[in-house]
């Protein structure tokens, strides 16, 4: 089973089993479609990602623009923005996460059913962006929840969001159903909940989830 498509052009499903992509493409031209359940599962999931309807700052405006007719996120099957985390697959953290807002974001993430994915959209969601030195801004949402795709930009254009979405689709298609490389939601021992931080005297308590995030250390010469 190969993970990377070798034939040029669009193939509905990458190679399954021992048959080569070229042979499969040949069969497809004769109207015979070969696939595996695993690929079908990934194909279906990757083309029906329902994002959580949830915006934090200016990046949310670009996210809204991506949903409008000009950019049309519906082309990728992700136009159904759900107002409840119970029905959502994808959390687009679009904008500045203030420390006041961070516990709510983590709680929403916890309340989403698996499989779930997270896109950190824009410089603020990735690292705090221009407000990184501010006292009230979380320096990246990946301190508390696992981020799958990072989209840089301030704010990123809707095309960038769509590119991030297609990258996420590729990631979902590459996920395995069983075995040690199984997707996160299929492994029985991975955590489904992440601790929600509390408001401390000066910072969130804890300031980051130590299982997810370790602050980069700057090596200093003596």
């Amino acid at each position, binding site marked *: 089973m190969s993970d990377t498509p070798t034939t040029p052009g669009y193939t509905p499903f990458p190679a399954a089993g021992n048959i080569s992509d070229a042979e499969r493409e040949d069969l497809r031209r004769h109207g015979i479609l070969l696939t595996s359940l695993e690929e079908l599962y990934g194909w279906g999931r990757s083309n029906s990602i329902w994002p959580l309807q949830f915006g934090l700052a200016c990046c949310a405006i670009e996210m809204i623009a991506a949903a409008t007719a000009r950019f049309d996120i519906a082309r990728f099957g992700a136009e159904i923005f759900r107002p409840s985390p119970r029905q959502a697959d994808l959390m687009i953290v679009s904008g500045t996460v203030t420390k006041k807002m961070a516990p709510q974001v983590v709680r929403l993430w*916890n309340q989403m059913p698996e499989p779930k994915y997270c896109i950190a959209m824009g410089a603020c969601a990735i690292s705090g962006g221009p407000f990184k030195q501010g006292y009230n801004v979380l320096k990246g949402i990946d301190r508390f929840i696992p981020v799958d795709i990072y989209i840089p930009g301030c704010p990123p254009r809707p095309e960038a969001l769509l590119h991030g979405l297609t990258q996420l689709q590729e990631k979902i298609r590459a996920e395995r159903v069983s075995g040690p490389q199984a997707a996160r939601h299929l492994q029985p021992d991975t955590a489904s909940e992440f601790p929600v931080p509390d408001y401390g005297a000066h910072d969130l308590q804890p300031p980051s989830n130590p299982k997810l995030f370790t602050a980069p250390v700057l090596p200093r010469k003596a």
Partner: protein
Amino acid sequence: MSDQPHAFLALFLGVALAFPLLMLAVAWLWVRFFQPAKPGPRKNATYECGLESTGDSWIQFKAHYYLYAILFLIFDVEVLFLLPFAVAFTGLSAGALFAMLAFILLLAEGLVWAWHRGHLEWK
């Protein structure tokens, strides 16, 4: 046509039962063999826009309100009939006039009764 013209209803019933059962069975098998359920206190908590829910959802609502809803109907129905009555007023016979008068008096009597009983005061 066949001897049993309603046989297709049985077919509909069969499909209506089999389809959701099949879906539920597939979901059950999927959870059983592939995706283990991972519930948790935060995950199962009441969804309230990310905030922790406070208080009890079993709030008490004053049932007296229904009296106001009924009294509103008096005016509602009255307007409904008064408007065509006013439009056609010049062409009406004496019988229609008296009938309308009796109707309005009946409605007004309901209001007077409710007023007299003290239902218009919010307790």
